[in-house]
């Protein structure tokens, strides 16, 4: 239970300290210590969950099972990588005068609050508290996105604040509807929004209300994930935010929002056949995947390129969850993990490139291999992993998803129930083949777009005035570790992670 308390106390304490400390070395030390505590606490919790199953703590406020432990694992891993990267990145930004030294405190404070909000969203037992925490992530990150205070960053920050707040308000309506249905069964208890209370009675909740509630929640949190058509804030925010912030947004925040959707699904699926939620998830997944694959082709800004690639990969994960079954769900979860690792690495590389070339235009970046060999390597590796090529783990997870899609097809229930026009059977043989073909074509498009741009950046001769050496910093450590993990996970999952993924899959697949 100390571990659970540590999860919340560490970022809170570190955030408070960040406001009063002025030396940047101390700020980094506090940050690393808090992240270290977080990771240690997560390991303890995961071990407990794997050994004894789900448990509640702190007077029913906290609920931890395999799913939340898995999300905590991603938060910890990417967060720690980010903290190491920030050691070199932030100091350099201050030294160059991009960020005033006095604003470093604010940066770290907001960073810790962001972490805190995500941790609370993951461990909260009450669906309502989870909503409050996810809205808090929006509030904590909007100034981080606008941290450079240029016109473009203000625009991106404002768009993010408004679109996400509105989207999330819709999710609140979904939460209200869930409460509405649970009050009928549970009576007027203050804990009627707790997952531990909802799960046992889930099959007696009113299916109409839950369907409506799930749609609101999917649209609401889907905005935060950046699913098409609610994605328009995402490329702007990812372009303008400083590299460590984007790495957290792309690697962790998206995953937390997906978690909120999945958590709701575990409840709704008891009352409504899982084809309903699955069909909706797959629909949004395909929309995101296909749109993003097309937009990847026309990007000329490398951060925007990675942003669209994020939308694409979230789409793939959603298709995995939507198709469902053990194979699809496992693939989706595994893909979330791989994407978090590969994308944070890609944005670390993007941050290094931006600091050296002072441009985000792909056309102006050439000869990266000569100018920054380590970064060039990181960029290539993340690019290959994001294109889901072997030997990287993302290849394995994408194969899981596409196999599930080809063998099961997409559940068509939400379409058949709304009207006859589009109700051609999406799970019959023709539908399966067609959907698989669409999936593969999109994947090839995304691969081509990514690789074409990346090779253009890596090879060639650097422009005049660009320094041609790369000194080793602490910021290189996380990149190497992430790359290593991506390769190793492709061949062999460490037993605890394997177990965690399997238990989570079992939680999400409802027979």
């Amino acid at each position, binding site marked *: 239970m100390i571990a659970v308390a540590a999860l919340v106390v560490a970022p809170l304490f570190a955030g408070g300290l960040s406001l009063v400390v002025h030396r940047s070395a101390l700020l980094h030390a506090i940050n690393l210590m808090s992240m270290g505590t977080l990771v240690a606490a997560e390991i303890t919790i995961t071990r407990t969950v794997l050994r004894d199953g789900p448990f509640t703590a702190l007077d029913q406020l906290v609920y931890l099972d395999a799913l939340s432990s898995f999300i905590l694992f991603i938060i910890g891993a990417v967060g720690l990588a980010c903290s190491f990267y920030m050691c070199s990145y932030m100091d350099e930004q201050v030294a160059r005068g991009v960020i005033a030294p006095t604003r470093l405190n604010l940066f770290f404070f907001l960073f810790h609050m962001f972490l805190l909000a995500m941790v609370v969203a993951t461990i909260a037992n009450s669906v309502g508290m989870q909503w409050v925490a996810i809205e808090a992530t929006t509030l904590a990150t909007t*100034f981080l996105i606008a941290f450079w205070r240029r016109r473009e960053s203000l625009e991106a920050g404002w768009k993010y604040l408004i679109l996400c707040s509105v989207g999330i308000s819709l999710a609140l*309506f979904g939460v209200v509807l869930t409460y509405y249905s649970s009050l009928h069964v549970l009576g007027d208890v203050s804990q009627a929004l707790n997952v531990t209370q909802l799960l046992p009675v889930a099959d007696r909740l009113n299916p109409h209300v839950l369907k*409506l509630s799930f749609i609101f929640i999917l649209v609401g949190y889907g905005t935060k994930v950046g699913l098409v058509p609610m994605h328009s804030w995402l490329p702007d925010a990812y372009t303008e935010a400083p590299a460590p912030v984007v790495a957290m947004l792309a690697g962790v925040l998206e995953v937390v929002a997906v978690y909120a959707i999945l958590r709701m699904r575990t409840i709704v699926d008891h009352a409504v056949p899982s084809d309903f939620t699955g069909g909706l998830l797959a629909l949004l997944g395909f929309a995101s995947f296909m749109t993003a694959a097309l937009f990847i082709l026309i990007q000329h800004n490398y951060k925007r390129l990675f942003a669209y690639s994020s939308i694409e990969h979230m789409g793939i994960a959603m298709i995995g969850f939507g198709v469902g079954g053990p194979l699809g769900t496992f693939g989706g979860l595994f893909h979330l993990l791989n994407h978090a690792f590969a994308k944070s690495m890609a944005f670390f590389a993007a941050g290094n490139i931006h600091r050296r070339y002072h441009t985000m235009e792909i056309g102006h970046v050439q000869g990266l291999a000569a100018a920054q060999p380590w970064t060039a390597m990181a960029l290539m590796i993340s690019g290959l992993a994001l294109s889901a090529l072997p030997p990287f783990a993302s290849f394995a997870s994408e194969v899981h998803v596409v196999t599930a899609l080809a063998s099961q097809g997409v559940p068509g229930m939400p379409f058949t129930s709304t009207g006859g026009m589009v109700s051609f059977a999406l799970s019959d043989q023709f539908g399966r083949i067609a959907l698989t073909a669409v999936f593969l074509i999109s994947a090839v498009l995304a691969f081509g777009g990514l690789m074409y741009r990346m090779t253009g950046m890596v090879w060639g001769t650097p422009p005049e005035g660009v320094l041609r050496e790369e000194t080793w910093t602490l910021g290189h450590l996380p990149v190497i570790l992430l790359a290593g993990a991506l390769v190793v996970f492709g061949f062999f999952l460490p037993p605890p992670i394997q177990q965690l993924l399997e238990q989570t899959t079992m939680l999400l697949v409802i027979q």
Partner: protein
Amino acid sequence: MQVLSYSGSQLVDLCSALLLLTCFAIVAQRRLSACVDLFALQSAFLVVTTALVAYLTGNQHLYIAAALTGVIKVIIIPRVLKKVIDRLNVKRELVMCVNVPAGLLICGGLVMLAFFISQPIIPLGFLLTRDSLAIALAIVLIGFFTMIARQKAVTQLVGFLVLENGLFLGATAATYGMPLIVELGVFFDVLIATLIAGIYTNRLQDAFDSVDTNQLTVLKE
């Protein structure tokens, strides 16, 4: 008892309807400061509705929610918005994507849509407040529409706050309020969101010399 709960239900419906009416007034209003006043008025109706439901059902924690709504949404947030408007020195809202009559018609359509969507789930509700859920959904949709139709940062903010009012009405009407801890959290989020948006409008004004979000077009494909 039956008579009391019937007339109580009528009263709650009346208050919810007044909230909806102020929504229409906001859509029809062109002056920024009047929009803010109307929002304060709407929040005041929300306070009355919440207190009424609290009285009729005996749920003590709803009184706390009503008091918080009064302090935050009737007093603090309108003041913050007025300050922002004073500093921006814009009085008239001239930019509208949709003209007023068309906007009102669309809102009428949205109300019908809301009643249509919530038809299957209304019979489940508690007798006292069951029609209010549809009204709440209508307010949410109109708030949504206001945000799309109006281009000024401040009016977008008002649209967002109207949307939040709709959500609170929904929570109060359908379920006699959310658990207290959740409600407190939501209040906190709304307050901080408004303050942050206020800071943004100042910065946008400095950077763009305008709070017309149509000007925000640096970032696009």
